[in-house]
């Protein structure tokens, strides 16, 4: 790359700071640049004694409750970073460079925005936080479409994006970006984790019928689960696409009744999953015997909010989650303890991933010794850590996907309390869900934008 191209590139990103941008593209080698003067002149470089983070979550619409829980986690993370509260996972994370005095000695502040679970609105609110409020990092989101849209924006603007809840393979696959990082697991990992459990519980001779939400996340999950189940020897009877937000799914459930399939896989999320599962159970699918086998329903991706919405219908149904508050490791316990003490109930997996992402970003800044995004990105890439739930974890450099243990869970048959909705069937080790980064294609793009 020529020097000229870069300075052009930089000024266009930021009309106002055009004059300041020349410093950031000085041709001195980047690996000598810790704390170097050049690193101080990038978009939203913190001035004064504070650094601002932007939390972009759904505050209205179907995922508003999930967004509210994410926001609680962010507030907790900010408190802990600034040395408040009991410190939560800052007591268990290792290796850790954070000191409890903010990040690089600067107090952490935050701004919030409403994604409305719409790409346009999410990008608008991310832009507001970047352009107006001076946010140095954006985090959040409760759907893959939004995550991918905001991640693309952050790449263009040169601001790091720490994804919240996004499960599509595309986020760190086809649409991966240098400035985007995902701690959450994905559909491919759900499939790999479920495989052995399905084999053990349901055998290797089944006919699966998929109902799939008709958009990119649904398709990637269907593909991943199909790959796994066909690997077990299952037949895929039919895959049917259903419109998002259909409400009543009965017209898609009736054809299953006499199809000869003995397993229903619901590639739905949120409200769609609550509705389709509730209705499938009403149609008596779970009481049916087909081909001499008990009919089974599988929900590959679970969340606590879905478990609450589906109520009784979820009991005994298998799926996967990124994390659960009932985990017994020290990191999870520390997090549940401080979250529970502050809010009076346990955190959801969305809250967990958002909390961890914030700490990881802050820690990477400390490691890099600067807020300069390319350096922070390098610190995150390939970072190995432990003590944040899910065991030993790695931020893979090739696609910015975290690799860690995945939980296979089941709707709890006999809950002991109102929060005891999911029972952990197995904590599938990381080695079993790893895959080659190249299989999804995509291109991370440049460090400097």
């Amino acid at each position, binding site marked *: 790359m020529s020097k000229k*191209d870069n300075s052009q590139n930089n000024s266009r990103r930021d009309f106002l700071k055009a004059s300041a941008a020349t410093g950031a593209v000085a041709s001195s080698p980047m690996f000598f640049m810790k704390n170097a003067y050049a690193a101080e002149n990038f978009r939203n470089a913190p001035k004064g004694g504070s650094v601002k983070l932007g939390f972009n979550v759904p505050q209205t619409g179907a995922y508003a409750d999930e967004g509210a829980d994410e926001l609680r986690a962010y507030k907790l993370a900010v408190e802990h970073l600034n040395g408040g509260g009991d410190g939560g996972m800052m007591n268990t994370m290792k290796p850790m460079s954070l000191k409890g005095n903010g990040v690089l000695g600067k107090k952490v502040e935050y701004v919030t925005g409403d994604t409305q679970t719409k790409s346009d609105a999410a990008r608008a609110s991310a832009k507001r936080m970047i352009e107006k409020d001076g946010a140095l990092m954006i985090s959040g989101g409760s759907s893959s479409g939004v995550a991918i849209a905001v991640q693309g*924006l952050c790449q263009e603007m040169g601001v790091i994006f720490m994804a919240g809840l996004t499960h599509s393979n595309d986020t760190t696959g086809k649409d991966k970006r240098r400035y985007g990082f995902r701690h959450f697991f994905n559909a491919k990992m759900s499939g790999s984790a479920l495989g052995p459990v399905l084999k053990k519980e349901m055998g290797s001779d089944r006919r699966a019928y998929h109902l799939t939400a008709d958009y990119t996340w649904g398709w990637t999950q269907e593909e991943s689960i199909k790959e796994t189940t066909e690997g077990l020897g299952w037949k895929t009877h039919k895959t049917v696409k259903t419109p998002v937000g259909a409400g009543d799914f009965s017209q898609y459930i009736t054809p299953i009744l006499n199809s000869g399939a003995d397993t229903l896989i619901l590639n739905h999320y949120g409200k769609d999953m609550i509705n389709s599962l509730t209705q499938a159970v009403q149609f008596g699918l779970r009481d049916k015997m087909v081909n001499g086998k008990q009919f089974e329903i599988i929900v590959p991706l679970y969340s606590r909010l879905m478990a609450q919405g589906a109520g009784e219908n979820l009991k005994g149904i298998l799926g996967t989650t990124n994390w659960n508050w009932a985990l017994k490791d020290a990191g999870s316990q520390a997090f549940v303890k401080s979250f529970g003490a502050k809010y009076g109930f346990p955190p959801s997996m969305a809250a967990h991933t958002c909390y961890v992402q914030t700490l990881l970003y802050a820690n990477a800044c400390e490691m890099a010794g600067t807020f300069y995004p390319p350096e922070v990105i390098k610190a995150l890439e390939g970072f190995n850590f432990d003590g944040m739930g899910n065991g030993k974890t790695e931020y893979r450099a090739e696609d910015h996907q975290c690799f860690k243990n995945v939980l296979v869970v089941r709707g709890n048959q006999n809950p002991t309390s109102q929060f005891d909705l999911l029972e952990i069937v197995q904590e599938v080790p990381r080695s079993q869900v790893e895959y080659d980064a190249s299989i999804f294609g995509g291109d991370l793009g440049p460090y400097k934008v």
Partner: protein
Amino acid sequence: MMNLSLKNNMVVMLIFSAVVLTAPLWLDPIGANYPDLLQKFAIFGIFAIGYNILFGLTGYLSFGHATFLGVGSYTAVWSFKLFTMNVVPAIIFAIIIAGVFALAIGYISLRRSGIYFSILTLAFAQMSYSLAYSVLTPITNGETGLQLTIQDPRYLDAMAGVAVKEGLPSTNLFGQLMSGYSGFYFCAVMLIIGFYISLKIFRSPYGLKLIAIKSNQNRMNYTGFNTRPYLLSAFVISGMYAGLAGALMAVTDPLAGAERMQWTASGEVVLMTILGGVGTLVGPLLGVGIIKYFENIFSALNESALHEVFNFLPQALENTVVAVTHHFVGEGWHLTLGALFMLVVIFLPGGVMEGVTNLIEFIKKKLGMSGDESGDTL
């Protein structure tokens, strides 16, 4: 004196241009001075002005105008992907394609009137949205939205020998980049042009005929006057405005998503227009300003921000005020918006613009000026 009245197009345009171009200055104190929101004001302003040409003049309530916005965006992004990152072809293509869609949908929908027309436009919009979201993913990239990629061919740029940079290319107007404030000024110029055309239409014989259709179409038909061509042309013009707005959305942020075409998006422009004042020139712009301001600024006020706002109050009072107000901002911004809709329409039947007109009248009366030259034509 006559020449300086608001009846003079030049005067109106000068004032309007001055107000629009200085927006970053006077929007700064209320926290709305940053590129993205300024761009959104201008872009949705264009959308609403165009919509008002159809709804405000003819009274035909279309519930599907977001389709043309979406089509404009998709066309513009495809133009960036296939031809060049220069925004001029993108905008031209977008206006043309949106016009073609408007012609087709308008031709069919305008066979009916009243609520039947509204539902026909709604049906077309919902079909476009559903298909764009799912089956047409190869063209629209579905839920994720159509984005630029490094591998895009960009034939014209390639022929012109534009250097390929690392990372995604950005939209430009003959080299001037279209992000940030330059993007806003570009949209602002488009808004001023759009406003001028709309002003001309409102004050032309053509505009008068459209208003005549609104007041009594049957009578027009009985006199042997064929209203269809007038209605259809108004529909297509407003569709092209929407296409331009869609293209500008892609120009300032090269991504096109299907949800831009959903009925809620169509409903939003209807609400903007009614809230501001149907059939007035400036009203729809006020509606845009209010709704976009709520969406972007009110939604971002969280509790800590509120404490900052009210920290001049005594501690106890501050906490009480924050406890009450935080239900209406942040995640509660919808509530405030809904209540505002109700209040405006209950007390100001003609929208916010009526309030403004009344206020001007009131001031003039107080000052003892004659009220006959009021801004009623705006």
